[in-house]
């Protein structure tokens, strides 16, 4: 316990309980008016405060704190700025970029290429949604035309992905 106390007190950003758990008190609420937006802060009870000793509590902005609730276990490395940014980016699932706009070509140029078209098909040969592929609306429409043209010509199967795609990919 003494070791924990010594570790915790070295951090200048805030103070925590001796057991390492966070107790939230006095959370200020956000107002609807943007001009009078209050800065959301959390105050943490220290062991010294509960004992009645005078000690200054530090208000930390929520953007610098990790998302921890009461009873959560944490380590000192979870309080660094890098760990906080990493935790936030985990929840963000960014769409992949549109490769056809980067190349300046349209998907209709690749209607004879079953390897490229199979990248945009599911296991059962169905065309993936635009939210999954990340293509623009125009290119998604052109892609569907290219896939249907390839299916009609015998270049691409309709119930699965192409054999040539399967030979090139590593499972």
């Amino acid at each position, binding site marked *: 316990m003494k070791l924990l106390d010594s570790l915790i007190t070295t951090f200048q950003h805030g103070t925590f309980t001796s057991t390492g758990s966070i107790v939230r008190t006095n959370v200020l609420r956000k107002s609807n008016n943007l001009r009078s937006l209050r800065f959301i802060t959390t105050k943490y009870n220290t062991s010294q405060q509960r004992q009645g000793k005078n000690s200054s509590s530090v208000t930390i902005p929520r953007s610098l704190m990790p998302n921890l609730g009461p009873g959560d276990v944490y380590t000192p490395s979870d309080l660094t700025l890098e760990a906080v940014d990493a935790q936030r980016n985990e929840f963000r699932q960014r769409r992949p970029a549109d490769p056809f706009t980067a190349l300046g070509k349209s998907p209709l140029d690749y209607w*004879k290429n*079953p390897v490229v078209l199979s990248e945009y098909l599911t296991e059962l040969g169905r065309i993936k949604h635009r939210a999954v592929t990340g293509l623009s609306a125009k290119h998604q429409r052109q892609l569907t035309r290219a896939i249907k*043209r390839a299916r*009609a*010509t*015998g270049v*691409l*199967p309709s119930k*699965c992905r*192409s*054999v*040539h795609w399967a030979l090139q990919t590593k499972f």
Partner: protein
Amino acid sequence: MVFYELFCISRPFVRKMVYTEATDIAKNLAKRCGTILLDRRGAIDGFEVYGLKELDKPIKKQGEKYDFGFWWGMRFHCSTFAQYEMFKTLHQDPSVLRFNIIRKAYKIDQL
């Protein structure tokens, strides 16, 4: 004059009197299509050969099953009537498994 593109999957071989390979079959087809176009004031841009490839599912043509096909293509300019004549010959030919004629542009300026 309209700009077209032909894509064709032809037979891998013929096992009759004389054994002919896929490349010879494709060459004969291309010659026939080319003569049809040139006789009707058409122009050929070029050929593309993708080679002998495994088909995703077996294709049946006139009672015979094929697991492989020879992929090749041709780009040409011609009138709509000439393109229709070529379509009829390819449709009836037994050595053509699948084909597709696509209009790329009405005029050369649109390319």
